[in-house]
């Protein structure tokens, strides 16, 4: 019994102890950056390997219930999200390798912090209690703040770190206030008990809980950069080192959704419809404003940051429709997270590879004629752009298909249409890049050193590109290899595990 429970917790334990170990090793001078990177990779791989063992099984458990009471939960759902987060971290460490080598600044403690933040994210998905979740969130966020400001030679890094820290802390206090209100109303902060207590209060005035949950949602909306709280996104993403940006944009979002889905779907289920109107407004504003921001950006990194706001809007569409659509829609949000995660990871990764050299400014104009000099990189970048835009034969298309089907199924046809409108406007800013890369003659500017394709980073990005296409077309009828259906089935399974009481 103890051993099974230890087994459930093993990925968490591996990552945490790896982080501590790296921290202890960091003063050792003779270890190079590559060593640390490799070590990080091995730890993540190990954790992922252990995680995979439980992947695709349907179960729910409170490991070490005697010791930890019910603060921690391990179920198929958390295992699924663990796998996502871990692979996100793995990919980040792989695509960051080249960037870190060039910059020569990211060493030692950086990787320790990286693992700590992965640990925090995983914990967030496992958390079954509000304050535990908050601590997990803080572990992940604090490490991220420091990772952003790690390279202090840049003003903008420190500034981004500062902005994120201040706004993140403020939103954090709202989370705590919300927890306090919920604690006041229900007398407990353990997630499983919240639902029961709430059921007991049915018919009475629950405005306290509603307000408290709204405050928690504020934090959530802030972290995923939904509408009224999106202002930081572009600046912070822009100011961060590119691999960290990729990590934030893709992996962190996954973790946050992981927690909030659990909270909203299970525990606040009886009163969830209260926020529907609010969400509809937030979605519309997010889509609108994100699209507007994305159109006016000159820099590619800022455009991707702005477009991540739009993708948040799509995710929120799935989020509101989950409760009203059937079981098939449940996995749409998870699938879209995977789709966005792959595409954004690839795009950010490739740009970080191209722009690793200090003096390359990554604006649209820099990509003029890029395809004629670097055909393969241009092709990969195009694949990611197409996927972000949701063009068929990429995973982004299938993701959008699920989201909009779910929305229509839930009766939110109006939202689906708005999403569609945002999508075709997004064609403009994604295709602009493709057009610039392919349709202009090459102009090699002096001073730009774009690396040739070699090393682990391009291979990783290539694999992601193939995965993006495979997710769009792949299926068992082409080869007996997990395709779209596999992802959906496992996502559905993980969703089902939430309801095991």
């Amino acid at each position, binding site marked *: 019994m103890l051993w099974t429970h230890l087994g459930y917790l093993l990925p968490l334990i591996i990552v945490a102890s790896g982080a501590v170990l790296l921290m202890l090793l960091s003063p050792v001078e003779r270890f190079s950056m590559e060593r640390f990177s490799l070590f990080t990779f091995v730890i993540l791989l190990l954790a992922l390997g252990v995680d995979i063992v439980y992947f695709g099984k349907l179960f729910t458990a409170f490991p070490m219930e005697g010791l930890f009471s019910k603060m921690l939960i391990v179920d198929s759902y958390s295992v699924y999200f663990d796998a996502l987060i871990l692979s996100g971290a793995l990919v980040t460490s792989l695509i960051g390798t080249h960037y870190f080598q060039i910059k020569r600044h990211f060493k030692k403690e950086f990787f320790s912090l990286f693992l700590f933040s992965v640990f925090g994210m995983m914990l967030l998905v496992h958390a079954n209690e509000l*304050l535990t979740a*908050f*601590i997990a969130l*803080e572990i992940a966020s*604090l490490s991220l*703040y*420091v990772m952003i*400001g790690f390279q*202090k030679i840049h*003003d*903008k890094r*420190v*500034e*981004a*770190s*500062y*902005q994120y*820290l*201040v706004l993140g*802390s*403020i939103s*954090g*206090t709202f989370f*705590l*206030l919300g*927890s*306090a209100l919920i*604690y*006041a109303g229900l*007398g*407990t*902060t353990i997630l499983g008990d919240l639902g029961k207590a709430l059921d007991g209060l049915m018919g009475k005035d629950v405005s306290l809980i509603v307000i408290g949950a709204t405050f928690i949602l504020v934090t959530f909306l802030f972290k995923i950069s939904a509408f009224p709280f999106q202002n930081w996104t*572009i*600046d912070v993403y*822009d*100011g961060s080192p590119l691999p960290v940006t990729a990590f934030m944009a893709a992996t962190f979002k996954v973790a946050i959704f992981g927690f909030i889905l659990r909270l909203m779907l299970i525990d606040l289920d009886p009163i969830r419809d209260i926020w529907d109107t609010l969400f509809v407004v937030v979605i519309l504003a997010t889509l609108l404003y994100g699209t507007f921001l994305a159109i006016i950006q*000159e*820099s590619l*990194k*800022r455009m991707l940051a702005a477009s991540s706001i739009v993708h948040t809007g799509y995710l929120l569409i799935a989020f509101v429709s989950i409760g009203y659509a059937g079981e098939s829609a449940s996995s749409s949000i998870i699938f879209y997270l995977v789709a966005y995660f792959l595409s954004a990871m690839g795009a950010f990764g490739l740009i970080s590879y191209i722009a690793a050299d200090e003096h390359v*400014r990554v604006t649209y104009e820099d990509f003029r004629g890029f395809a004629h000099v670097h055909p393969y990189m241009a092709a990969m970048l195009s694949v990611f752009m197409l996927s972000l835009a949701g063009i068929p034969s990429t995973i982004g298309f299938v993701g959008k298909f699920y989201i909009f089907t779910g929305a229509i199924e839930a009766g939110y046809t109006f939202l689906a249409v708005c999403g569609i409108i945002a999508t075709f406007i997004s064609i403009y800013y994604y295709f602009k890049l493709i057009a610039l890369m392919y349709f202009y003659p090459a102009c090699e500017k002096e001073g730009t050193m774009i690396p040739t394709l070699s090393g682990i980073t391009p291979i990783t990005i290539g694999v992601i590109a193939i995965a993006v296409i495979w997710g769009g077309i792949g299926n068992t009828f082409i080869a007996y290899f997990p395709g779209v259906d596999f992802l959906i089935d496992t996502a559905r399974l993980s969703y089902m595990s939430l309801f095991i009481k």
Partner: protein
Amino acid sequence: MIANTLFGYIVIAMVLFSIGLLGVISRKNIFVIYMSIELMLNAVNLLFVALGTYHNDMGGHVMAMLVIAIAAAEAGVFLSLIIVLYRRKKSLDSDMFRTLSQKEAV
């Protein structure tokens, strides 16, 4: 009899929280911004303790303790970042640290 009802504490906590929020919104001095956040955390603490006492549940007190620890952790990062920022900019004006959106990104 105010001291024996929960509501008085809640009023104080909410007033403190609001003042903290006000400080965050309207002040530019990064020290004061930080202290406002601390104040908000303290207000939440008071809420937790008061609720714990009135629910007859030690959990509230434990949560307050945990929040103090979280505040301490944030303080560490915050203060070191403030030092770095002040060294670079020789200013405590939070507007000085928002140059990202204005200049061309590198």
